[in-house]
């Protein structure tokens, strides 16, 4: 099943690459998607042409995600970068019945309680957006430039732990990518190994 899914997701890219090819390759156009947010509003990546976009994979039950929300780190990043015009999309790819799966109301309640300020929370219970980006962990972070090109994919920072104390001493890769990218510089660290909990896709996906 896994192989089949990947094959479908990879599409034409498979022709060139071996079966280990990658759908969301840094430097290439970011995979197109349309997702629905908690208010029922659809968002397509194409709508954000001309803006920087951050994708944040989320599961509120995951201890690695808790690290970044309980320390206030994620909210701070959302605040800082949306204030600079960045579109911040929190994506939830947990399948129904799996950890992190939430209704729209539950997602909104979490955002309110945590004082999170993403531009929108996209509900992706089928895992379609997650599969297109091969999102593996929560958090798994992506940065897309105003031309729709993927410029960063990977970990939120360089401290792969669940310890909130590590946030203060971590190098944040998302901020680094946005800072460099918005200054017209190439991103020094464009790909890292994401860390966190596995994304809770539907069984067999």
């Amino acid at each position, binding site marked *: 099943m896994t192989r089949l899914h990947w094959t479908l997701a990879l599409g034409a890219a498979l022709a060139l690459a*071996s079966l280990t090819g*990658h759908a969301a390759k840094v430097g290439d156009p970011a995979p197109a998607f349309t997702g629905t947010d908690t208010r029922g509003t659809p968002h397509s990546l194409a709508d954000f042409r001309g803006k920087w976009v951050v994708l944040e994979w989320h599961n509120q039950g*995951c*201890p690695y995600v808790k690290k970044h929300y309980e320390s206030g780190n994620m909210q701070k990043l959302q605040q800082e970068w949306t204030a600079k015009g960045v579109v911040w999309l929190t994506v939830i790819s947990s399948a129904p019945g799996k950890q992190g799966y939430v209704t729209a109301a539950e997602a909104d309640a979490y955002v309110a309680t945590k004082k999170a300020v993403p531009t929108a929370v996209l509900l992706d219970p089928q895992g379609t957006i997650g599969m297109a980006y091969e999102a*593996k*962990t929560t958090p798994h972070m992506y940065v897309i430039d105003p031309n729709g090109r993927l410029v960063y994919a990977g970990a939120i920072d360089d401290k792969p732990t669940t*310890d909130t104390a590590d946030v203060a001493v971590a190098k944040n890769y998302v901020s680094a990518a946005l800072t460099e990218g918005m200054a017209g510089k190439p991103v020094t660290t464009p790909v890292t190994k*994401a860390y966190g*909990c*596995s994304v809770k896709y539907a069984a067999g996906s």
Partner: protein
Amino acid sequence: MVRQFALRVLAVPAGATMVLCGSAAPATGQPAATRDASGPHTRVELIAAPGPAGSSGEITLALRFRLDPGWHLYWRNPGDSGGPPTVRWRLPAGWTAAGFEWPVPERFQLGPIVNYGHTGEVTLPVRVVGVPAGGPPVTITGEVRWLVCEEICVPGRGTVAIGWPLPPGDAVQAPAWGRAIQEARARLPRRWPSSWRAQARRTGSQLELQLDPATPLGRPTVFPIDQGLVKDAAPQAVEVSGRTSTVRLALGDEAPAAIARFRAVLAFPAGPAYEVDLPVTSRSTPTPKPRS
């Protein structure tokens, strides 16, 4: 085995701890740590191989994890998600603890995610050097952090401590601990013999391993030691011909442009596992026999 001892709690000689560990000792008023700690779905215990340090000044400790069925702990390279257990030791001045000696992991596939980890009972030996023979009694303390996952993940943390030399109450169990540590070490990956050929070659987006042991070992499973070098979820293409096997691994998206060496544990259907540390060439021409 030694399961019956799991719940036994040792009263550490707190007075001695305070004096001899100096600044490393717990603050006054804190309860002395016990040998075990527990967290969700996990118990962890600090054990030690018996015997005096002797002239080598070396002793062996081990963290022994016991996990509920269905739950796993992570290997040194956790794969696509999760993270390995860590310990911060508080030791007397002059003592030094090495890292964990990692057993051969299992490979878990959950949807598009592959992890390397351990289930059931997991013993991680640790070598400690600089231990004086016949020194005064001290307490060794470890702050342990770990993550266990089933499908969901839960972090755990705890402090474990043991007296050294082993106090009389522990000395009774020490032979069983010694056996457990010995058994754990017997199952560790062995060093790939230098007389056996092994090569690692980078070809485009793949890493090709050629293994030529002196006797046929069967179809290897490769566990990369360094995270992110190879794509964990990609199938490992293995061809076996007589003694020789060729394994093609897909390089990870985050693999660096230049890979100098490839370290891995190779598990075979029968017999021991081996650890290799190979220089990586990028040409297809034959290379001299590598140091391994």
